[in-house]
């Protein structure tokens, strides 16, 4: 039997950059160009094989709109990895991404793996953020970097694969995940009553 590891991942980033589309492509291998903005957050899981282990991704796809901003800590606090998404055709979304990185540094779990995804790379004609600038920035903060297209299924699985590679065994169990986080399956909850 293969060992099953649970990897908690959250997606952060400006509204409309394609966070949900990336998750739908990864989980369902589907794409809907007329998708509505996410309301609150959406939870999905997908299990993939990685070497001789099974990795079960528990994915929190958060809404990018300002009114849900204050809820984000609830989702990233317990995560082993965060995928921060920007839209390569919107410079502003790259600035928002930098703010997310800052917030994670200050309030996120200490060893959280950060992946930066420059989405909509199929629209390179309208590009506003150069691949090199983004890559340099990602390197400077030791983050995974890929340009993706949820629409054309480019580099989507790769992001998750890189996360699988980067997450040390001890973190994947959620052992290092921050205190005060309750939005996860909590085995101690059921035990509490017994003692």
């Amino acid at each position, binding site marked *: 039997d293969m060992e099953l590891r649970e990897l908690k991942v959250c997606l952060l980033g400006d509204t409309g950059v394609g966070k949900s589309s990336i*998750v739908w492509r990864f989980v369902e291998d589907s794409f809907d160009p007329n*998708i509505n*903005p996410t*309301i609150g957050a959406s*939870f999905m899981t997908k299990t993939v094989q990685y070497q001789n282990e099974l990795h079960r991704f528990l994915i929190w796809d958060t809404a990018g709109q300002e*009114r849900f901003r204050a809820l984000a800590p609830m989702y990233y606090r317990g995560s082993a990895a965060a995928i921060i998404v920007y839209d390569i055709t919107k410079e502003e979304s790259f600035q928002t991404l930098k703010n997310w990185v800052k917030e994670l540094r200050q309030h996120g779990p200490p060893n959280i793996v950060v992946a930066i995804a420059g989405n909509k790379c199929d629209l390179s004609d309208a590009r506003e953020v150069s691949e090199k600038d983004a890559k340099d920035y990602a390197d400077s903060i030791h983050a995974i970097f890929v340009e993706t297209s949820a629409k054309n299924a480019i580099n989507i699985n790769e992001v998750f694969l890189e996360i699988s590679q980067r997450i040390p065994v001890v973190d994947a169990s959620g052992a290092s995940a921050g205190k005060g986080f309750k939005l996860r399956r909590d085995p101690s909850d059921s035990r509490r009553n017994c003692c």
Partner: protein
Amino acid sequence: MAADVHNKAVPWETANGSLAPVERLRQDRCDSPTPGLVEGTEPGAGQDSHMFVHAQSFEDLTADGDDTRAEAAGSENTSRLGEPADEGAQGLPSEEEQVEEKESHPGSRAKEEDVTSEAWRRHRKHVFVLSEAGKPIYSRYGTEEALSSTMGVMMALVSFVEAEKNIIRSIHADGYKVVFLRKSPLVLVGVAQTLQSERDLSRELHYIYYQIISLLTLTQLNHIFQHKQNYDLRRLLAGSEHLTDNLLKLLDRDPGLLLSAVTCLPLSSSVRDVISSSLQAAKAKNLVFSILLAGSHLVTLVRKKDQYLHHMDLHLLFNLVGSSSSFREGEGWTPICLPKFNTAGFFHAHISYLEPGTDLCLILVSTDREDFFNLSDCKHRFLERLRRRTAYQALQEALKNPSYSVSQVGIPELRHFLYKSKSSGLYTSPEFPVPYQSEEEQERIMELYQYLHSRIHHPTRPLRFIYCCGESENLLAWVTSGFELYLCFSPLGTKALAVSAINKLLKWIRKEEDRLFILSPQTY
């Protein structure tokens, strides 16, 4: 073209407003084929307890407004029924008027419209939301930026009248009604060419107001504008415009919002009971409401004891689910304020479809924002339990026919009807028959129902019975303390025929009430 209004008690009504003594009906209501007319004995009335906040339908909505005339309305009796109603509107609108409407139906690109164009002006109903500083927050058609000077004028009108210690309520001119709703810190304005009364338009503006509150809470809204009067609220509402757009569509098309009621998926009561009890068993400490929907139909609702849901809050939940494809995959988790329950705080809703590709959507409402996995667990327990029962197959079967044909009633001239049981807050209605299958025709018939509703609930001259003849259909509406009934007949029918159809229809609804209504609502 004539509105015909009874000014005497109708022949089938007895002194206590019922065909049979109340006591007898309460006892053997299910055996009795005779429907009661008073509240609690009408077809569809719940047997044990109510599901919703007990609401006098529509009055409840305006109760928190400044409409003091509403109080007087209740006391008026039928002696005034013979008088013509407001604005001299008599009978149904002519076909010529209707033709123009069709051209002005909005496309999906409504936002990019040129606000100086004739097409923009011709929309049947505009809705604008602005801040007290006159800043645009929402416009149904056209971008808010393009309308900022128009909204400035609206705010100037409101302020001008208020300076004289007065309140502007509406302007009637050139076939338009301009209705103002002042709900500090917001101002809502409706501009309509419809047959609706000022009061019904105001009711719709309330819906839009509560839609905004459901996203932010009133507390947060007040807080924002206290700190910064000039705040651009669109920043916080970004990504929710489609909810308001869709709600306005529902207001034009969904009888539930007109009747302040909810409709159920027709289902045998034994099947519904199994579903309800499965839902009841899947409870959690902070769970307040469990709601199972099939499209726009309610399958069942289980609530915490002593906690009631208001039909308006339920409509806002329906709208949230119905207008967002984002709940189609995975499990949604979102804060939501149910403004009729409490405008100050958020509930947290777990929203998910039971299975891929199904219309069955489960909404679990909790008071705890970190309750997600507890509620996710509730959902799985519910589904597991339900799957083991044959009721689940019966439910899947019922989903194939979420509505029914009016021909089942067996009244040849009857084309369509709306029946609302006041005590349960539930209504039933058949699918629209052939002449009303296009969106335009459905909106037209809905507008006629809205017109009857406006007449029946007129603030100073309410009616209990109204019969109207038009070129395309004849309409009848009747309200008692127990129900509201709206009937649509072929234009060839007569009034005598329509009147005799009422009893037959009520008997049919009584016979079918187990299937069409939720008679025994459950609590945890």
